[in-house]
């Protein structure tokens, strides 16, 4: 498993749901003089439904909702100065003043899968890698352990998981599938927690192994995957706060739980506005 899976293999095994309007050439570095088209210059001309939804429907609303007329400037730490915070805290990037050029946007989605069975035999990972490739349409890279854990018999350098980073059209397609097909089918899933977010505008969520069978690509040939594995997803956005990140993801129909407290606050605010 020391060889990274070739990207051409991913092209061969993408699902039917993906719109493949671009021709697939494999050479990446050949010069144009040879008459070989470089892979990077090929664009998909197909429509990206959720990207259009973002630009036409929700981008302006997000800009208006997250607008602050007076910017609350945090204490700026000058560059090069090392600041040590207590505990495991780390410095967070300071939010910028509201601007039409800096509306919170979804940048990338990371799909990551760690399989504990790979400790006993690395070939257990194959199923996870194939499953993630089927779901996302992109070959994941294999993750090797950074350091060993004696209790779990994990050694440094062992292949233990896989990860794929989705950007652009592929990202929107994956999110579309997630929100339209997989999440509605999940049993007794109330939505993401109300306070979810890592503090810097990214939201993460995890899936049990049963969720893998809900994806159409895997549902159709369920028998071919030896092992069903859980995985986690991280939505990386350009938002600076949890609120903005949640606002953005809710615009893509990602459901969030509403606690009783916030429901009461919403109704109270509505009641206050009504008589006026």
């Amino acid at each position, binding site marked *: 498993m020391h060889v990274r*899976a070739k990207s051409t293999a991913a092209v061969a095994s993408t699902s039917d749901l993906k719109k493949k309007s671009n021709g697939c050439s494999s050479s990446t570095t050949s010069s144009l003089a040879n008459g070989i088209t470089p892979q990077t210059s090929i664009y998909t001309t197909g429509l990206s439904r959720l990207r259009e939804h973002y630009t036409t429907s929700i981008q302006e609303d997000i800009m208006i909702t997250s607008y602050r007329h007076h910017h609350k400037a945090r204490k700026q730490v000058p560059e090069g100065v090392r600041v040590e915070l207590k505990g495991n805290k780390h410095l967070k990037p300071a939010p910028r003043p509201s601007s039409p050029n800096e509306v919170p946007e979804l940048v990338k989605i990371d799909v990551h899968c760690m399989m504990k069975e790979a400790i006993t035999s690395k070939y257990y990972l194959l199923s996870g890698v194939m499953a993630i490739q089927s779901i996302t349409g992109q070959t994941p890279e294999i993750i090797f352990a950074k350091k060993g854990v004696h209790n779990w018999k994990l050694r440094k350098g062992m292949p233990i998981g896989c990860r794929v980073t989705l950007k652009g059209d592929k990202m929107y397609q994956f999110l579309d599938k997630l929100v339209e097909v997989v999440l509605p089918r999940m049993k007794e899933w109330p939505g993401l927690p109300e306070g979810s977010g890592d503090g810097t505008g990214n939201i993460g969520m995890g899936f049990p*192994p049963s969720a893998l069978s809900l994806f159409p690509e895997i549902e159709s040939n369920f028998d071919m995957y030896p092992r069903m594995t859980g995985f986690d997803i991280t939505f990386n956005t350009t938002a600076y706060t949890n609120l903005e990140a949640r606002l953005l993801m809710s615009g893509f129909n990602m459901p969030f739980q509403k606690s009783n407290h916030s429901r009461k606050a919403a109704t109270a605010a509505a009641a206050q506005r009504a008589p006026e």
Partner: protein
Amino acid sequence: MSSPFIRSAVTAKTALMRAAGRPGMKKGGSTSLNGDARNDLIKKVLFDAPARPPVRLSSEDMARHETIERAWKLVRQQHKQEQAAGLARKFEMMRKANAELEATSPLLFKHSQTKERNAVFPRQLRTLTDTPPKQIWNYREATKA
């Protein structure tokens, strides 16, 4: 081996295993990779698939290809510029409105700046589609709220 998700090699399709090129399957012998022949096929697909030959174009075709790419880039650039200009216009109007409100009434301005915490788009938000949904209007849900 208590997990319901582990399937033995016995349940896997034999034809597909032959496609994996395992000589052992014909004789019915056990295979490597955890004794699961499906792993062999997966390994082949992921790591051993032959690279596709590069697409070679003549110089004329290359020129056509480059022209098309440039034209599409230009179209996308124009769309992005239009969008950005629209956003900037709306933002400027909003900024002016806020400034005017602040000058007019500090109390109203303060109320306008306090936002509802955890504001999210409604769950009923409908993303744009080419065709209408199977159920156009849900009367029960609408009359509930």
